[in-house]
């Protein structure tokens, strides 16, 4: 059995994710009252009352159109909640610029770059809710790290919706996110949905010698298949015997490839 209660001070948030069109305010109660509650919101700009149009969904949200831009006069939003047992309210006062916060970038894609073991190409799109990115351009913040490490790398980008990471660890899977901010005002968006990508790696190839010894297939080494006419080394430079005999030159090449995979 839950006891009905008067409302506690409501939690109110206002934000502009579609500047310069307008802003929205949303609210909720910190604890349930178990009886119906009625919300009333008022928005004042200087001496002018503004209309906050209720959204169809969610029901605890309304939006206001800007009638003026670049005003130094603050907005004052008061939310009152009433139920059968009592009443409470909260007030927010803010500047036009302070509440500008875009939605995160959309369609983030990260791809390996062929033949480049340390690069990842990342692209994204402006949030669809941002109405005029040409007149009100966004800047972006990209963060990335290999899954095996906790430390993020950060890059701030003042234009464009793509970036090439050039210092990725070869062969390691990365997690990448992007955030957006109006170029001049407001705060950073939340981080975008994370994407994963691994830089390009060369496929393992087989190493052969003039004696046509079959390939070694160790997981930590790489070998390549030389063209039939290629002479890699003389018989006199061979070491080992039987199927595992390799020449010094081939051995050095194998060692070099092995280092790449550490």
């Amino acid at each position, binding site marked *: 059995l839950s006891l009905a209660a008067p409302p506690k001070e409501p939690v109110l948030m206002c934000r502009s994710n579609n500047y*310069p069109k307008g802003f929205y305010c949303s609210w909720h109660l910190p604890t349930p009252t178990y009886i119906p509650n009625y919300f009333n919101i008022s928005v004042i700009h200087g001496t002018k009352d503004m209309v906050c149009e209720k959204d169809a969904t969610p029901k605890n949200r309304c939006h206001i159109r800007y009638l*003026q831009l*670049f*005003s*130094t006069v*603050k907005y004052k939003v008061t939310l009152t909640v009433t139920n059968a047992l009592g009443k409470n309210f909260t007030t927010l006062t803010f500047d036009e610029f302070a509440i500008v916060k875009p939605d995160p970038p959309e369609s983030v894609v990260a791809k390996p770059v062929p033949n480049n073991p340390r690069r990842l190409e990342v692209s994204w799109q402006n949030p669809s809710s941002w109405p005029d990115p040409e007149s009100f351009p966004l800047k972006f913040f990209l963060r990335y790290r290999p899954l095996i490490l906790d430390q993020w790398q950060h890059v701030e980008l003042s234009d464009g919706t793509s970036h090439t990471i050039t210092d990725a660890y070869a062969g390691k899977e990365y997690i990448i996110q992007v955030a957006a901010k109006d170029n001049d005002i407001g705060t950073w968006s939340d981080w975008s949905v994370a994407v994963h990508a691994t830089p390009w790696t060369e496929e393992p190839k087989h190493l052969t010698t003039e004696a046509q010894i079959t390939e070694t297939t160790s997981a930590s080494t790489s070998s390549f298949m030389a063209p039939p006419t290629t002479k890699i080394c003389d018989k006199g430079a061979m070491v080992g015997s039987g199927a595992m005999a390799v020449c010094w030159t081939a051995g050095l090449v194998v060692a070099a490839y092995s280092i790449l995979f550490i």
Partner: protein
Amino acid sequence: MAAADSPSAALRRDLCTRGIRLAGKMRADVLDLLDAYVEQQGLDASASVAAVEGVPLAAVERWDEQTGTQRLLQNLAAYRAFRALLAQMLEEQREQLGEAEAGLGRALAALLLQVSAFAYHLEELLRLESRGVPGEEEEEEEEDGPPPPPRLSLFEQKLRGLGVLRELAQWAVRSVRDLRQLAKPSPATGAAPGLAESP
């Protein structure tokens, strides 16, 4: 076949780009100066300041419907006014305060230079469009009519200074937006739109 940019369109875009950088730097410096001003003048940073006579308000309705000429003329009038207001603030600063606030005085002087440079930049843009640059002499003649307002108290001077800097910070953002609109190429020809056209 896409039309190539005319030399004047390219020059306008170049002037707009430089103007955007000037306005961006100006805004950053105004915000730094605001912090220092509030602290050194002993003011409350959140204090509301009523609109003061003579301080051009950046607030505008239907901003997106303005023509290029309207944008340039309103910007020019504003920065000319700020030039005079900042010069007055600097003079008052020198009278009131000694060495302790010399840094504030230097910052005000530097900002005054930036505002003057930006006003000149706007005049260049207007000349580029063969628009008449309104003379400041005409503005002064209009001001000969009413008598000068009474001298403000020290506290009133401080509050007015706060209002001037806050409004200048808003104008700097508005100017960046206005210049971006001006720099946009026309969708029909690929060249920059004429200033009489909206936007």
